[in-house]
């Protein structure tokens, strides 16, 4: 380093040359940051602003919209003498179901990963075939599962029929079961994703520690809990991050499988935002933006946690 410092001071150079190391990162960042700010960061603020207006989406929001302050939020939560929006409550409640049940993908993925973590012939092919559902579009997953759930002719309906269960209207036609049916469809690819994370994690488990624990008599569940899982912590963290995000992004499956129905029982916040603005039943852009803000705030809790964990890692890596 000292040599280069000397050589810099000896030769007089232009302004750019002298500041090259300070300027270069900004030049390299400029296009990416510009794109990202225009398309991602700024729209978040615009949606915040939009949520304070009553606007049908036509023309310009400043001329055609009316500023209503927190009125949209009052309507959502039933504050200030407004009646709480029933559909919003349903969506919120369904999002909670998604969040909790989607997390099942983590233990399920771990279970399949443990099952497949062997070195028998052809196991590589098995691993990739088990991963398959993740590669396929959610649109296709949604279509296939809705055929499984068809009333009368769906495979699921036929199979539950063997055990004497009958869900009136079919899984997706019945308000009591429809959301669970969609979540089950979503769990399929998500479990595959968690599985691949754990398979990679298991690959990196320190064999010496496992052998040492084995000599100490650790086996089965104890070994898993005290020796293996602590080493899988990074994989579990990523699995948690992607599963939470997946749960809150549950738009495609709802849209394909039920379109929010029956009787609006499968709405989630992400779908409700779309319904209130871009669908033919919508055109309440300000109100939809308020719903989007609520969804964003829920996500923000998790984002803050993720960033905080990463920040701790970064600091740990530097010291």
């Amino acid at each position, binding site marked *: 380093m000292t040599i280069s410092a000397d050589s810099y001071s000896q030769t007089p150079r232009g302004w750019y040359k002298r500041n090259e190391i300070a300027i270069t990162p900004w030049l390299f*960042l400029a296009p990416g940051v510009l794109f990202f700010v225009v398309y991602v960061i700024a729209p978040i603020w615009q949606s915040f602003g939009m949520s304070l207006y009553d606007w049908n989406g036509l023309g310009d929001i400043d001329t055609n919209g009316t500023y209503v302050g927190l009125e949209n939020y009052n309507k959502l939560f039933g504050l200030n003498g407004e009646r709480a929006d029933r559909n919003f409550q349903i969506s919120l409640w369904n999002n909670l179901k998604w969040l909790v049940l989607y997390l099942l993908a983590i233990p399920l993925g771990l279970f399949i990963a443990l099952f497949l973590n062997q070195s028998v012939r052809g196991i590589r092919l098995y691993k990739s075939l088990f991963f398959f*559902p993740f590669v396929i579009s959610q649109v296709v997953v949604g279509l296939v599962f809705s055929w499984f759930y068809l009333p009368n002719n769906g495979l699921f309906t036929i199979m539950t029929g063997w055990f004497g269960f009958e869900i009136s209207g079919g899984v997706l036609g019945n308000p009591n079961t429809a959301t669970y049916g969609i979540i089950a469809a979503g769990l399929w690819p998500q479990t595959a994703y968690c599985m691949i994370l754990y398979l990679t994690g298991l690959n990196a488990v320190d064999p010496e520690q496992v052998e040492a624990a084995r000599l100490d008599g650790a086996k089965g569940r104890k070994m898993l809990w005290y020796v293996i899982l602590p080493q899988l912590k990074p994989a579990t963290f990523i699995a948690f991050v992607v599963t939470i995000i997946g749960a809150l992004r549950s738009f495609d499956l709802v849209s394909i499988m039920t379109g929010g129905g029956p009787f609006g029982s499968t709405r989630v916040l992400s779908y409700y935002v779309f319904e209130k603005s871009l669908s033919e039943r919508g055109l309440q852009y300000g109100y939809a933006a308020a719903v989007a803000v609520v*969804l964003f705030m829920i996500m923000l809790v998790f984002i803050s946690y993720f960033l905080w964990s990463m920040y701790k890692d970064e600091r740990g890596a530097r010291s």
Partner: protein
Amino acid sequence: MFPTPVQKSSPAVRVGYQAFLPLALFLWLLPLIAVMIFSIKPDVDFTTGNYWGWPSSFEGFTNYGLVFFESAMPRYLLNSVLITVPTVIGTVALACMTGFALGVYKFKGNLLIFFMFIAGNFVPFQILMVPVRDLTVDMGLYNTKTGLVLFHIAFQTGFATLFMRNFIRALPFPLIEAARVEGVAEWRIFVYVVLPLMKPAIAAMAVLIFTFIWNDYFWAVVLTQGPESQPVTAGITSFNAQYRAAYHLMSAGSIVAALPPVLMFFLMQKHFIAGLTLGAVK
């Protein structure tokens, strides 16, 4: 290795494991197997209620022929390619640069910008929906592939930057220092020193983003309409509306739509998994 290798277990366990594997796989992939069988069934099977049984005749050629020659499917597929490929190129180009800037240089705000990319990447799409749509309309790009591509590039740059930056961080820094001592210009260090080392990262990002964008449905619905610019995911749903209850045709269409990412995954499996499991191992 955990769990204990089956080779060390009794022969009964070993044989049992080997026998159970294909059965488990069959059950796991049952939905996919079902669509494949659906796609070669004749129409009459669905009217007679033979949904899940063996096809009464093989109609694969008829069904796929219809999808390829008499529907808008090829159009949608072409759109998907024309949306996905530019997005992959654009995102990788931008993210190589941002990743280089954030991974190599120490400057004020480095971590802040990095975290902005990560946080933005986790944001729910719906909070961007109306502003991005309005922006796209204002630019005259509503219902064009370009409009969709521009947004995808911007959004995917967040995730790709995270990946590239961490990858560059793990490269041997003395290499860059050595080049600096030699007096190599910074942009030349990027092009001739760092970029060649980033090939595996670029491959991983390319396959992942290809898959994500190919499978995108939400933005396709928000920013486009109609067969002139909609990708295949959105096309499938209009296909669905056109051939309502024609399960054999919908299945054939779905398989055609799902095939490119599946092929991509099989051809580039190592890179694909490396990209997805980034950070799963420390």
